[in-house]
Every structure is written in C-alpha cells, then in structure tokens.
C-alpha cells in the first residue's frame, strides 16, 4: 500500500459533467495556454508583424470606407450619426462574428492535442475568442479616429460602452464555446456560418438604427440577442447617451444564458471529443 494519496483519481462523470472544481483548477493553472495559443495563431496569420498589425487597422478602415461610399456618396445621406452608428456597430458585430467562426474550427483544429493531452478542452474556443478580441481592439482606435473627424460630441456617457462591450464579449464567448462543440458533431457548420452571419447582420440594427424600424418589426427583434446590445452600444459610444436599462438587462440575460448553455453543452460532451475529432 502507498502512504501517499493519489495525485489524480479518475472516476465516471456524475450527470455527464466533469468534477467542476478540478476542472476550474486545471483551467486556471493552464490559463497562459489560452493567450499563448492565441498569440501563435496570430503569428501564423502574420498579425504579429508590423504590416500584420497595420492590416488590423486598415481592414476595418476599408470596411468603413465601403459603407461611407454607400451611405454618404452613393445614397447622398450626410447624416454623420448614421455613419458613426454603422461603423461602431459593424466593428462590434465583427467581434461576435470572428468569435463564432474562430470557435467553430477551434476544437477540430486542436484534435492532436485533444488525443494526447488531458486539459480542459474549453480552452480551445476561449483562445478563438481571445483572437477575436485582439482583432476587435484596434477597430476601436479606427472608430474613435472616425468619430473625431465627424466632430461628434464626447462625454462621460460614452463610458457605458465598456459594460455593453463586456456584455457582448460574454455573449460572443458563449457562442464560440457553443459552436465549437456543435462543429464536432456536424463538421459543415463552418460552411453555413457565412450565410447565417450575413443574415444576422441584416436583421440586426447595424445598417439601420432601432428608431428607423417599424414598431411591428421591433417585436420580432426581441428574439435577436444583438438587437439590445447594438442599440445600447450605439446610444453609448455614438450618441453619448445612457443606454436603456431594459437593453442592458436583456443583453446581459442573453449573454449569461448563452455562456451558461454553451458551457454546459460543451462540458457534457467534451469527454467524447477524444474519440470524435
């Protein structure tokens, strides 16, 4: 008999879930993997070079240029607020979109590591989310630059953008985790995502503002999690207004709900990943 206690004990999961305390301990111990993995992915895509980082700025700038061409030049709409709204919401939307598309590939891409190493698999979609976040931050520099050029008023209410970004970030993380798991079961989800993302872009108050929607359509928008997030985001950082409490609460409920459902779905299925990837 050994005098020492076992370092690890593996037993069947209870209710399909791994022991959550141990899981969290393992995740915390390996947290530097998340950032290192994100860094290596960005390195692979050359985002760590000077030109790569410049591209992170130029890309959203070009994107906003396209919409400037559409709204201001072709449509002849000189409403500065509308252009600022579109740019701000589009950048936040791409953060959610990149979290989804990166998350979709994350577990499959880490297949060899999953087959060979015991670690919390949730770190893979979390890394994809970190990559999306790193790509999102420079777009804010572009937005504030555009905002200055447009001469929109600055004020303390813009700080409401921070909790709104946190709510949207939580929602994006939940989506990344949920889709990464679903993609193990249906490998073509990644192929459907661009169509889904484009439809979602048009159904959300990004290319238009909430106030432009007919009241009838607004009730449908309650089913769209991005509706309240985009509205609150635009009010805060474009209009320098306090977002509606209702928007913040709805956004937070969607974000927490998605994160909880996504995490539960992921944890109850991650045991199977080693035999499915």
């Amino acid at each position: 008999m050994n005098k020492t206690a076992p370092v690890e004990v593996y037993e069947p999961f209870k209710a399909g879930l791994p022991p959550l305390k141990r899981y969290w301990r393992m995740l915390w111990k390996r947290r530097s993997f998340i950032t290192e993995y994100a860094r290596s992915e960005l390195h692979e895509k050359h985002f760590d070079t000077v030109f790569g980082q410049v591209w992170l700025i130029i890309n959203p700038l070009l994107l906003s240029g396209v919409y400037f061409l559409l709204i201001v030049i072709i449509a002849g709409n000189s409403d500065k607020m509308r252009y600022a709204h579109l740019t701000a919401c589009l950048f936040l939307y791409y953060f959610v979109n990149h979290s989804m598309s990166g998350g979709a590939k994350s577990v499959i891409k880490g297949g060899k590591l999953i087959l060979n190493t015991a670690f919390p698999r949730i770190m893979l979609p979390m890394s994809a989310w970190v990559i999306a976040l790193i790509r999102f931050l420079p777009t804010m520099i572009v937005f504030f630059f555009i905002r200055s050029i447009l001469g929109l008023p600055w004020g303390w209410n813009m700080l409401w953008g921070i909790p709104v970004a946190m709510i949207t970030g939580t929602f994006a993380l939940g989506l990344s985790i949920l889709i990464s798991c679903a993609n193990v079961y249906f490998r073509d989800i990644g192929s459907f995502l661009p169509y889904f993302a484009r439809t979602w872009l048009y159904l959300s108050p990004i290319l238009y503002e909430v106030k432009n929607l007919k009241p009838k359509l607004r009730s449908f928008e309650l089913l769209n999690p991005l509706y309240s997030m985009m509205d609150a985001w635009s009010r805060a950082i474009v209009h320098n207004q306090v977002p509606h409490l209702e928007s913040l609460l709805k956004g937070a409920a969607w974000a927490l709900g998605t994160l909880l459902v996504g995490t539960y779905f992921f944890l109850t299925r991650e045991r199977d990943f080693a035999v499915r990837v």
Partner: protein
Amino acid sequence: MTLQSESDFSPKTGELAVSVQHLGLTYTTTIDRRPTLKARVRSLGRGAKFTRVVRALDDVNLDVPYGSVLGIVGANGAGKSTMMRAISGILPPSQGRIEVYGKVSTLLALGVGFNPSLSGRENVLLGGLAGGMTRKEIAAHFEEIADFAELGDAIEAPMRTYSSGMFARLGFSVAVTVRPDILLIDEALSTGDAHFKEKSLNKIKELRGDNRALIMVSHGLGTIREVCNEVAWLHKGQLIQRGEPNAIVDAYEKFLHVGKSAAINEDI
C-alpha cells in the same frame, strides 16, 4: 507529447504508480468519419444509424508499481490505446476507478506536434502549457529537449516540414526529458531510425533504473521482451493474461498464429 510539471514526489520501488480498478470504458463514436448536418438532413426518414457505441474496456484491473515497465500487447481493437488515454485522464472511465500516484507524461501515437504550421519550439511550448507546465519550466528543459531530439536548426522550422522520424524524435524527447514519474508510451518508438530507437530504449531503461514507472504499448514484441518486466495482454477490452514477459508474449504469439490459421482455414 504531453508535458506536466515536475513533482517533488520521489517514488520508491514497489510503491504503486498506477492502480486501475474495475475499469470499464464505453464511448459513442460516429460511423461517418466526417459527420455533417447536410448528410443528416438528407438521410432523414431513412432510419440510418449515425453513431455506434463502443465498449472499449471491460472490468480491467491492473496495478503498476514504481521501478517497473509494463508492456501491453493485444491485437488491433483490443483497447490498448484507450487504456493509455484513460490512465492519462484524456478519456475518463465509464465504470471503475483509476488512481495515479505521480506526474504522468504521455507519448501517444498521434499527439506529436498538434499544429503543423507552428515550429517545433512553439509546439513544445503549447503542448507544455496545455499539460500544466509553466513557461519557466518549459524554458528550463528546452535545450535538453532539442539536444536529445537531434533536430538542430529544424526545431525552429514549421513541423509540417518534419519527417515522421523527426516528429517521433521530438515527441519522445519531450516526454522523457521532463523526468516524469510515470511515462506512457503508445507505439511511439516504431517510427524512429535504428540509432534513435537504440537511444530511446536506453533512455527507457535509465528511467526504469531510476524508479520511474513506464507503461508501453507496442506491436514490437522484441522490444516488449527486452525492456518490460511485466506484460499485460488485452483482447477485446478484457485483460486476458498478465505476467512474466516471455511467457505472455509466447502465449500471445501462439494466439495470433492460431487465430491466423483459423482465419485462413475459414477462408478456404
């Protein structure tokens, strides 16, 4: 390759390293190699089956003490790799219990270099961080890993440019250099050249002499006879026999031969 941080635990010969108790492992896998939503929708109403339940291990009991090398033999589908994954915590059991008394390092057949676009160095770092090591610990071992793997400047090249031998060398080097208490090796020695095989075998013997515990899966029965002090024979998820290497390997070889002959006769 899996790296875990070094432990302060100093194992003694004869003390338990791994205790597998009534291990049963069942999992559900897909029939299609690449399951898709499109295929699922198209076959709706046809009653097609998409998954199958595999009972990979059934009531396996096994104790591995420190200072020993346990070889695991068995035909394809015997559950050897599944058992290695269960012991390393990759695939938790469906029944029973596994107790591990030390830090495990795994070298499983498919795990070396998980991102082929990244260099050997980056893969070692990522694998180490995923395994729970700190950057400092990895950095402290890195030169030794690179030296043992004999990769030279190739350690900085993307792993997609590596030959299978280079993959194997790096994987083995990572797994043994971190001085694990328990080392799990699954068919990892089969791809190296003669020189590296020799070097690897010597390293395994050194670890055995150093009171570490090793569990190795191999179809190379010569290697099993040479380095193991004990052999377990698995067949269709069950432990058939366990004991002295030559006796078990002889019995296994006899079984394989008989099995083959029977199959040939059946075909005729």
